[in-house]
């Protein structure tokens, strides 16, 4: 059995490779190509998820060698540690429905000639992610990391005729490479300090100490933070995620950002020795800022996919908040509390993956049906797309953190960790916990506003455009993918005890943490804390609500004298009720735009076109824009600086062959001198 388990990860990679070959072979027959590539990807992902299951449920050790380069003696080995297995499980849970969905979705979103390219890139991304999560070697990690970035960039640029897609892909490429640069520097420093390329040697916490450790932490946090999409490194995310086809957006938001989270977990929290208090506080701070600003920006978006992309930033923030709280507690020696925070963070990783994939796929159905992402052009879709509407509502409720769905349980755990942190962590540090709690409370309430808006404006009331009036429900494969993800979120919400039991194996494998399984009270409940414990059983909440619903139904049907249900038009304030009299998405978020105007710094233009008298305008145009704070005040100066340096360096590029030859000569001489100098 052990032997079989060891084959799963290489087998997954081989299947990815075979799938890519088969995709190329069938490239001209688009239907075949589509099924081949996505079924192949699903099989491969299922294999890697099996590895995750063997490690997490059966406690097997899985590891081995992926690649040997005889000439240089490079051996790329891998080890599925429980942390890797957790992220592999997340990958498996989300990407199989996404692959299924893609089969139905791509024919409507991408020209046939590009099926093969998208399919290959999809397989490469998944294979690279699998390697990133399990590899135990610096070279292998960086190689897979880069491959993942490049394949994703090509997916973002699928619709490369559009300028916005190209710009998004370019921005993503640049940001990722700056991040990767930081990672390369940091890993090389670690390698030269230890003389080993193996993760188990360089990430055991003893490799570096003193100020070097500090610098490494910041480099890694920067490098992984770009991928995780936390503020202020997020600028690429709201451009790149919506630009890709919706199923790819789902994959990017749900799984790709977790590669960054995995890195922060593996290296920043547990790879550099016991974290400093300051590191934990930095992570918490970044998490808080990302969460609150992410949701505030999401609120004002009227482009459904951009709204979801900003909400991804917010969720990355919540994940990092839990992680940071855990690091702070670990730094102050409160391991039994740290485990709650880390469990909350890891739990939120899988929760976010399920409901965000669900929401993005739901948005994909809508985009496919009406060919626009603008909320203002939707409306009334629930009647025309009942499945999509109901499932999107399900996702909206889950992400808003209401019981008994899964978003609630990870927020519950995070709040408990913060409360206990304030109680037991010594010194002024502890003030950060209730502060974070208040921010988290505000975030989750704002998320509810955001998703009432997204669901209500898109799916309810009257259609706001001709396309929305004639929308059709999507094919059954696509709906099946949504149902699978919704079912997963339901299970994750109702059985938190079982999930924590599995997480227990992950936390015990992390340096010096007790098992999170101790928090579990049977499959249905979770309890934290010593003394009078606090417990949550979402199933009881669900039963209570269902019971009360029965009371409501009895009241309504039991007391009534007149049995008929009459349908009547909505009162249109004396006029005709048309889509133009409905409340708009812009109007819905307007009060919060006004309340937080110091953050948004909105600029607005009102233009009234009148013919007879200014009091009876024929047409009123209203435009509101929020200031892109980070782009304008952080990135613009950097870009200007880089460009002006490049401008000055143009002197070197004189265009004369003689000059270039002399550079070569000078460099050659300098190298000879330097190498000779080392030789002595």
């Amino acid at each position, binding site marked *: 059995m052990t032997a079989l388990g060891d084959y799963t990860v290489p087998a997954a990679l081989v299947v990815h490779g075979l799938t890519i070959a088969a995709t190329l072979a069938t490239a001209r027959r688009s239907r075949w190509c589509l099924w081949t590539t996505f079924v192949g990807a699903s099989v491969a992902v299922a294999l890697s998820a099996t590895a995750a299951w063997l490690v997490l449920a059966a406690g097997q050790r899985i590891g081995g060698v992926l690649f040997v380069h005889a000439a240089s003696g490079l051996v790329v080995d891998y080890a599925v540690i429980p942390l890797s297995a957790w992220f592999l499980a997340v990958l498996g849970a989300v990407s199989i429905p996404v692959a299924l969905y893609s089969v139905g979705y791509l024919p409507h979103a991408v020209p046939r000639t590009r099926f093969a390219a998208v399919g290959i890139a999809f397989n490469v991304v998944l294979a690279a992610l699998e390697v990133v999560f399990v590899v135990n070697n610096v070279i292998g990690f960086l190689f897979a990391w880069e491959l993942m970035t490049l394949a994703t960039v090509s997916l973002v640029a699928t619709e490369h005729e559009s300028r916005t897609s190209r710009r998004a892909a370019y921005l993503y490429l640049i940001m990722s490479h700056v991040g990767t640069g930081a990672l390369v520097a940091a890993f090389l420093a670690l390698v030269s300090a230890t003389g080993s390329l193996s993760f188990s040697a360089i990430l055991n916490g003893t490799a570096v100490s003193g100020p070097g450790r500090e610098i490494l932490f910041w480099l890694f946090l920067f490098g992984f933070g770009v991928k995780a999409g936390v503020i202020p490194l997020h600028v690429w995310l709201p451009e790149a995620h919506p630009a890709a086809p919706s199923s790819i957006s789902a994959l990017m938001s749900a799984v790709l950002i977790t590669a960054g989270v995995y890195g922060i977990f593996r290296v920043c929290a547990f790879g550099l020795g016991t974290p400093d208090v300051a590191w934990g506080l930095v992570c918490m701070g970044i998490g808080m800022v990302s969460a609150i600003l992410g949701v505030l920006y999401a609120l004002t978006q009227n482009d459904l996919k951009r709204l979801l992309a900003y909400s991804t930033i917010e969720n990355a923030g919540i994940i990092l908040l839990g992680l940071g709280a855990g690091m702070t507690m670990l730094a102050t020696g409160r391991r039994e509390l740290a485990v709650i925070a880390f469990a909350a963070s890891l739990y939120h990783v899988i929760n976010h993956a399920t409901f965000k994939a669900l929401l993005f796929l739901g948005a994909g159905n809508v985009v496919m049906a009406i060919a626009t992402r603008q909320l203002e052009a939707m409306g009334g879709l629930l009647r025309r797309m009942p499945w999509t509407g109901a499932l999107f509502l399900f996702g909206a409720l889950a992400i808003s953190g209401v019981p008994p769905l899964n978003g609630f349980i990870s927020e519950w755990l995070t709040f408990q960790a913060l409360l206990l942190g304030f109680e037991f962590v010594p010194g002024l540090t502890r003030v950060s916990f209730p502060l974070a709690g208040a921010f988290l409370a505000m975030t989750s309430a704002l998320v509810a506003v955001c998703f009432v808006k997204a669901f209500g404006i898109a799916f309810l009331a009257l259609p706001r455009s001709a396309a929305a009036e004639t929308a059709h429900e999507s094919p059954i494969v696509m709906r099946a993918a949504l149902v699978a993800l919704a079912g997963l979120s339901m299970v994750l919400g109702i059985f938190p005890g079982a999930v924590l039991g599995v997480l227990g194996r992950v936390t015990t494998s992390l340096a010096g943490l007790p098992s999170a399984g101790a928090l579990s009270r049977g499959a249905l409940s979770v309890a934290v804390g010593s003394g009078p414990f606090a417990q949550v059983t979402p199933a009881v909440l669900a039963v209570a609500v269902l019971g009360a619903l029965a009371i409501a139904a009895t009241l*309504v049907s039991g007391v009534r004298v007149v049995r008929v249900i009459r349908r009547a038009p909505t009162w249109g304030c004396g006029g005709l009720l048309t889509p133009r009299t409905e409340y708009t998405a812009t109007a819905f*978020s307007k009060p919060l735009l006004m309340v937080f105007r110091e953050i948004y710094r909105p600029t607005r233009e009102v233009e009234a076109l009148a013919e007879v008298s200014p009091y009876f305008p024929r047409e009123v145009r209203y435009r509101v824009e929020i200031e892109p704070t980070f782009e304008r005040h952080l990135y613009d100066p950097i870009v200007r600086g880089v460009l002006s340096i490049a401008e000055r360096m143009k002197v070197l590029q004189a265009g004369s062959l003689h000059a270039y030859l002399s550079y070569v000569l000078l460099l050659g001489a300098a190298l000879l001198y330097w190498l000779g100098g080392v030789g002595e």
Partner: protein
Amino acid sequence: MNETLQATAIAVVQAAGMLAAAPLLRGVIKKLKAVMQTRQGPPLLQGYYDLIKLLRKEIVRSDTSSWVYVAGPRLYFATAVAATTLVPVLLAAAPFEGAGGILGLVGILALGRFALAAAALDTGSPFGGMGSSREMTIAALAEPALMLGLFTSALAAGSLDLGAVVRNGLGPGVLFRPSDILALAGLFVVLIAETGRIPVDNPATHLELTMIHEAMVLEYAGPDLALVEWASALKELLYITLLIDLFIPLGMATSFGVVPLAVAVAAWVAKVLVFAVVIVLVESTNAKLRLFRVPELVAVSLGLGFLALAIRFL
């Protein structure tokens, strides 16, 4: 199994009792307000008459609406009723102790709010949208203040479980701390905001541009409206009970028995009445705030929460 049955029985009785009492609280508040204004006011039981009348009426629904419109009031009602099972009322323990504590309570009320706010958008009426947007905005602003207030009280007990908080409050020690005054004031502002009372919202008006909660449910009629009204009344009673649990649990029964329960009932009624009087005083002596002044009020509440936390624990 026996314990589960017992808990369920207590939960049902408690939910039924609070459902029965909620309209009376509204009646008392209306009557007291009338007295303040030297009017006669409606009878105390008017709330019940209204509910019965509404429940007997035919159902009229907008022809643009979908099942979300039907589900809204039902879920709003159901979550309010389910929330009563998470709060200790007479006994010093919530019927469903391990269900989720304070956070479960906040979460379940958020579910009801979400359902009603979404339903309000379903008719296509601009008022529904306006009400929905404003209600959600105010709730979002009030949420951190609520959480901070709850944190402060929960920290003393070391648990976010309401039963534990109450038992801690009943235990030996100081009866009332200075920080409690600040936290109570902060949470009282949240109570006003969440239940739509003056100065945040005015439950007695249908003035087009100022209404919040009423705008949201403007399109509802008959039994649907009855559910919304009843649930709103219940939520008000629920929030008051929550404040009682957190700050003045005195008199709550720690054991089963006729005498402790009788004392607990009397104490609870008296304390709810005190809160009703305070609400009436606030409503009668204040004018409704402009919508964009509400954030300042809520910010004060948030500040009070932080001060309470600082005084108590630093």
